[in-house]
């Protein structure tokens, strides 16, 4: 039953890729289509409100400037709300203003689509903040990521000077994808018992006569966009393990599909833009292959259980249940963990800190590669970056100029790609090393031994990959962690995005090289193998030493 339920979810996902991908393609292709009649009037109203008079294409520099300006302004406004929430409405529990470094961390975290949470939702933010900052940024950061992925795809698949209009893409991401989907998923979740209320905490007298306080709030509305936007920031500290956020296996499946279907359909969207759907399916297959490797690692490690507990003589046949919920068991927990770190959502339905060493390695590995589906857009962009790298490597081997989608790949593009590829391990491993050199970092470790290394490594990997989940035992609400992870999240998001927009800007202006018999094809099985190879070799070479010190050492010690 365990494997069967996983296969059913995978099958539903694969069936959704084409219809959802086609819809997304039509949203951004900017060709007239049926949905204009439904959304057109509303979009024109928004364009008027924001003063967008003409929707001409932008060069990559203007596109980057527009998205950066929008993000900076949202960060500024959000920061002010966090610092002033005490004086704002919808604060029935009387929650105080947030401290400076925590506010910095929180606002960067939400703007970069990371949703690393060093605060606790129950006690750290008011309902107004949950709505006007958290929920709002879950939309806007996802829309930003979506827009950029599409702009990148336009850059590598079309010809001219421009890669689209950021503001138009940004508005359409909301009106045609995120808002309608979020409303539907919200109502489905409420139907399945997720609360959505503005009432304050409820106090009841339990069956045994004790008093129990139960915190609720506008949860469902946050829950839907949390997954659709691959954000992952929970309403509660326990995130999607909390029974109010995720009350049943059915809501669990809906949350998994919500966070997965948009990233998974982007390769198909890319295939449509490239006028060669096989290109898209090759990328999708490579992603799915890597995903299945990691999922199997997590599932079988958790099913095998914790040797230390198994040795105590209890009935441990269910697997490692520490930090997991009974309603999900091992299969729904393992699948959720694999998807949340693949789609860089960062929502968790079980505590990743309590995963068996190899299960934890599975989640860590997906974030280190950062290409297995990936968050809103970023995963596809990263995978295409590896595709170009793969073409380049093959070109070197046979001694001819590498081409990708009919364009020559030259030093300028390769330099930018090298920057983007190297930035990721750099901003993970360097801060991890720094954390171990200082008491400020070491003092926060709560699990002794090799697992302590994993805790720190996970924190920075999650920040750099803009995932946001954590080995949450880490006592990370200190100025040291708030500031360092805040910086890592910013670098993790913006370096690669700007570098890849520059690549798109450079490719879009190139002459197309006619396809000949000698052209290296990027839509066949050989390229599928090269793509997986490039990702695994680069990822393994970079991170293996760190992994050996953390999860692998812990695994060997546990036996």
């Amino acid at each position, binding site marked *: 039953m365990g494997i069967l339920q996983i296969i*059913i979810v995978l099958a539903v996902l694969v069936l959704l890729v084409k219809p959802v991908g086609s819809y997304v393609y039509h949203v951004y292709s900017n060709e007239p289509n049926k949905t204009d009649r439904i959304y057109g009037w509303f979009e024109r109203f*928004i364009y008027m*409100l*924001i*003063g967008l008079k003409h929707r*001409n294409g932008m060069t990559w520099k203007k596109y980057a*400037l527009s998205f950066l300006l929008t993000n900076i*302004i*949202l960060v500024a406004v959000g920061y002010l709300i966090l610092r002033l929430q005490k004086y704002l409405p919808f604060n029935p529990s009387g929650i105080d203003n947030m401290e400076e470094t925590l506010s910095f961390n929180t606002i960067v975290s939400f703007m970069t689509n990371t949703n690393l949470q060093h605060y606790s939702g129950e006690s750290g933010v008011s309902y107004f903040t949950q*709505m006007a900052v958290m929920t*709002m940024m879950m939309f*806007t950061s996802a829309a930003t990521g979506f827009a950029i992925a599409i702009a990148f795809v336009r850059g590598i698949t079309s010809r*001219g*000077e*421009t890669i689209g*209009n950021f*503001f138009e893409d940004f508005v359409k991401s909301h009106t045609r994808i995120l808002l309608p989907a979020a409303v539907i998923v*919200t*109502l489905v979740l*409420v*139907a399945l*018992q*997720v609360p959505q209320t503005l009432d304050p905490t*409820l106090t*009841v007298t*339990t*069956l045994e006569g*004790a008093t*129990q*306080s*139960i*915190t609720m709030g506008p949860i*469902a*509305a*946050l829950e839907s966009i949390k997954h659709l936007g691959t954000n992952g920031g929970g309403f509660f500290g*326990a995130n999607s*393990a909390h*029974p109010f956020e995720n009350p*049943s296996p*059915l809501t669990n*499946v809906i949350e998994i599909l919500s966070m997965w279907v948009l990233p998974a359909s982007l390769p198909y969207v890319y295939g449509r833009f490239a006028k060669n759907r096989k290109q898209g399916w090759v990328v999708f297959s490579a992603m799915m292959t890597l995903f299945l490797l990691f999922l199997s690692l997590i599932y079988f490690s958790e099913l095998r*259980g914790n040797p*230390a507990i198994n040795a*105590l*003589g209890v009935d*441990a046949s*269910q697997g*490692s*249940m*520490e*930090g*997991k919920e*009974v309603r999900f*068991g091992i299969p*729904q927990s393992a699948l959720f963990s694999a998807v949340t770190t693949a789609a860089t959502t960062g929502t968790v339905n079980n*505590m990743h800190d309590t995963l068996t060493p190899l299960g934890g390695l599975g989640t860590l590995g997906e974030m280190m590669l950062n290409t297995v589906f990936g968050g809103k857009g970023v995963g596809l962009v990263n995978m295409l970056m590896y595709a170009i790298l793969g073409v380049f490597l093959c070109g070197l081997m046979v001694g001819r100029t590498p081409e990708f989608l009919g364009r020559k790949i030259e030093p300028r593009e390769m330099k930018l790609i090298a920057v983007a590829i190297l930035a990721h391990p750099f901003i993970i491993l360097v801060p991890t090393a720094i954390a171990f050199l200082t008491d400020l970092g070491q003092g926060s470790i709560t*699990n002794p031994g090799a*697992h302590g290394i*994993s805790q720190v490594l996970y924190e920075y990997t999650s920040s750099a990959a803009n995932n946001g989940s954590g080995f949450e*035992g880490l006592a990370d609400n200190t100025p040291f962690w708030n500031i360092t992870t805040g910086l890592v999240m910013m670098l993790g998001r913006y370096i690669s995005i700007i570098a890849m927009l520059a690549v798109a800007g450079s490719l879009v202006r190139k002459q197309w090289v006619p396809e000949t018999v000698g052209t290296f094809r990027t839509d066949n099985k050989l390229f599928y193998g090269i793509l997986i190879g490039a990702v695994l070799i680069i990822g393994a070479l970079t991170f293996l030493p760190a992994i050996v010190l953390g999860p692998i050492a812990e695994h060997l010690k546990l036996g």
Partner: protein
Amino acid sequence: MNKAASLPGSTGASYAAIALRASIVFIILCGIIYPLVCTGIAQAIMPHNANGSIIKDSAGNAVGSELIGQTFADPKYFQGRVSSIEYNGAGSGSNNYAPSNPDMLQRTKDSIEAWKKDNPDVPIDRLPVALITNSGSGLDPHITPDSAEVQIPRISKLTGLSADQLQQLVDKHTESRDLGVFGEPRVNVLKLNLDLQPLLK
């Protein structure tokens, strides 16, 4: 194909103005209107669910939420999973113990010792691991069906209720997998104990 935007006004300053106005529009649309509209619809058509699935006893008093577990200290009741936060619904979470953490191992050993003392009739090789591990949320409302069954001998001895009667209660409250396939079979401890309570008097 794509033409560059060279119209007047496409400068950094005008982009900043659009960005500012867009930020305000989306804060209001996504941050205020969207959640309030969702709250309105949810409250109008599904008030029970939207307000936390509160359970009332026969006298009509709220005794808890069916989704949130409770502490049952009295051994006459079925007990839930380990919760480091004592099922405090104003918080959530766990100790986040790593599988190699000695404190976690000690806690588990203590749970096993306590089990041996309270349940001498059930050997520990029948004690399901789910019952002595901390849930992720600390609020897990469920236990596995076998976690409920192994508690029957103890409750039967303390209350004088027959094992058959208790088994029937457990069976009645055993929920199967969602749609027959997703998740795990489970027993809601609060609902089960709510049915057990009148029999204790």
